[in-house]
């Protein structure tokens, strides 16, 4: 389990997520909007009689929000007893990666620097290893 990763494309970037942090991957319909909520909250949806809060990683990274399409796949995570789901652009694979996680080399965009834990080598590409719980909270908003 330690070495099992989910390879997904979120916020226009291929990332690896440690599988133990992930509850499941599901598809959602149209979420229910939450007026007045912070901008990265894309809405609410129900799954197995639980209400999940949908997070748009684009906003967390500092990109403009994307509309949620029906049937879009989301990554369900539990953070502090609350259920959240990260909108994913694409889910690529779940695989064992034997390579060790390495320290982030090079300069990242500030948005990514906050959520990335490290990097990992997979099939000839370097992937950011991100912690989904970092997407739940927004960085202190800059004055728009």
């Amino acid at each position, binding site marked *: 389990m330690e070495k099992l990763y989910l390879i997904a494309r979120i916020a226009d970037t291929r990332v690896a997520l440690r599988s133990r942090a992930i509850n499941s991957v599901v598809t959602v319909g149209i979420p229910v909007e939450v007026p007045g909520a912070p901008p990265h909250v894309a809405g609410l949806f129900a799954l197995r*009689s639980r209400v999940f809060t949908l997070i748009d990683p684009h906003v967390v990274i500092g990109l403009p929000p994307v509309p949620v399409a029906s049937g879009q796949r989301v990554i369900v995570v539990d953070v502090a007893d609350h259920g959240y789901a990260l909108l994913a652009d694409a889910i690529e694979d779940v695989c064992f990666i034997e390579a060790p996680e390495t320290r982030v080399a090079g300069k990242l965009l500030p948005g990514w620097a906050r959520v990335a834990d490290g990097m990992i080598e997979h099939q000839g590409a370097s992937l950011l290893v991100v912690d989904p719980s970092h997407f739940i909270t927004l960085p202190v908003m800059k004055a728009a």
Partner: protein
Amino acid sequence: MVQLQFLGRTGTVIDDLLNDFLAETAEILADAGGALVAWEADPTDRAQLDAIFRLVHTIKGSSGFLALPRVTALSHAAEDALDQVRRGNRTANAALVTRVLAIIDRLHTLCTALGRGGFEPSGDDGDVIAALAEQDSPSDTGYDVAGVPLRRDDDFQSELQSWRSIRVPLPLLDSVMTGVTDIVLARNEFARMLRESGASPTVIASFDRLSDSIAGMRQSVSQMRMQRIDKLFAPLPRIVRDLAQDMGKKIAFQTSGGEVELDREMMENIRDPLIHIVRNAIDHGIEALEDRVAAGKDITATISVSARQSGNQIEIEIRDDGRGISPDALVAKAIASRAITAAEARTLSAKDKLELVFRPGFSTAAKVTEVSGRGVGMDIVKANVEKIGGVVELRNDEGRGLTILLRVPMTLTIISGLMVRAAGQYFAIPRGAVREILLENGDTVRIDRVGGGELATVRGEQYPLLRLETVLGREASDDDDVDDRALVIVRPGQGQSYALSVAAIHDHEELVIKPAAPMIMATGLYAGTTLPDNGRPVLLLDVQGLVAAAAIDATETGRNHDQMAAAEAQANAARNAAQLLLFRDTNGRVRGVRLSVIERVEEIPASALFESAGHVQAQIGDEIFPVHTANLPEAEGSLKLLRLFDGQSVLCYPIAEVIDIVRLPDAVQPSAAPGLIAGVVLVSGEPVELIDPFWLMAQYAALDGDAAPNQPLCRLADDDDGWGSNFLAPILRNAGYRVVSGDDAADEAPDVLLCLTEDGASCAHVGDEIPVIRLRSAVAAAGPDDETVYRYDRQALLDALARRVGGGRA
């Protein structure tokens, strides 16, 4: 009517308590058996010994409460022996362990019998107790451990079953609840698919059957978490008894509505507030005995705790008939403790003054007592109740008592919600906060734009208007029909209200509320999320938070002040007018009288009654009042009097006891002739004679000692044998004259002089300015010029008086 119980408990509570005790004891005995054997193996193991001691002590404690003398005696003996070991007075050895185990076995037998029969079987436990008390003899050393009759686990199983209740961990219950909710959602989804696929009627019929049983199951699971509120009330009689004894007060404690059910989690949350309020009532509310007598109250105070269900809320009312709260004393204290300034105090309404009680660190006690008044008080109670979505209300009747009403939701998780639409999506509003729903373009609603804000006027009452779309920062949806727009009058808390304008009202349903993610809660707009049957999440609006978000002042103070005050006064008047005091008459009949005519209930010694002028009078303090009774009471001791007051004079009506105060029923069967009894009403199915205070007062009106000075003064002369004062004076007083007898020093010239003897020796010197009436003892007149009046001719006498003075009431 409330079931009176003097520190007693109802049968069902005792059953529940007994079941709990048995289940608990079975576990304890099982533990104790094991622990004893382990301890025996290592007598130096102090921790083990302490554990056993605690277990036995627990049994003793609970059995004492349930009045199980044999269990108590047995556990006490075991506790005693173990304590001696703990103190080092006795050494632990096999013999001691055997004897303690013998006690444990006996306890077991008793508990099994209790479980079967529901009562403790009679019998003698002297043998095992004596054996335990016995000090060791050398022969005991050869004891064989293998002989200890340990209970086997399956024995406990069968016994637990016979007690017909099991204990289930709460998380398990919760997971069952979640599972069932899942099933319901899956069913809804499936039903949609069935409808769309055009399945055959047989499939739909069998699906409906499945659907029904799922609904039933959901119901049962919700009930599994519910408990009778009896459980909450059960420790109260004991607390009241002990405290009342400590403080030398007499208190009758009643509970009612114990069958009301409440989610057990809620129960945990209101246990401490409830106990606190009851203790407060005993300590501060109920006056000392002498103060109660002085206030004309029954010596035995009453504290009643009642529960009732209203919608999906539970109301718990704690009522005492003590001194209530003095708002002015509260204000004085608040100023003294610098909680408020004197200037602020002047602006407070009566209700605001009362609310001072909820200020942190505020104690109403004049002095700090052991029981309460330590500054930890009503603020904690209020905070605890509000934490679970409840409300605390005070109903103060200064001098007569205080009623505290706790209103809490039945469960933490299920509320009745009103579904509304705004900006194209649904939101839920807690039904409890909704006061009224109106169509926005209805006749009763007027909306004004005032300085950029909006104001809704509903039947003369004004409310600040919030548009839900605006508060949420959304645009109104184009799909909305203007005719659907509705106003929801919301009361987020005490003394606050506003009108919330929404695009449409949908319906209302029972909602399972879950907290939303922290960043959503942080908006302050929402109180949680819920999943209605359609499977789409809905946000529950925080009706209090909306006020803050919209930055409006929702307090009602100062708005519609006159109407509200008038409405309150009217409600008060209606309440007073409609109440009936039920009492037992001295002849044992149950009678009633309107509460409003009663000034107070006096308790006086029988010796304070005396007979004067043919009527029984009572001396109360420095005053003398007529008493409606034919004879002086024969018995010594004290008696109770109702003090009727008509605004001018007082009449005492002796009673045996006060029974209750009830609402005066609307239907009165009037009696045929005017008299003491105005009619008969039915109270709780029993006929009650209604006293006619008008008639009563009319009988005694003229007897009033404080007769108006404009009543003619009648002087009796030559009343040597006392006939005048004994026989004549009452008639004269009845007829509206003041009477003085000849011996009294007359400061005032009498209007008429009555000479009681025919020769009229002492009347001779009276001048012509005072008319004189002479009475004769002979029936027949002496001649045509005889102006004397026969002394038993009441009418002639009164006529003569009326002619002479041109006054009187006759």
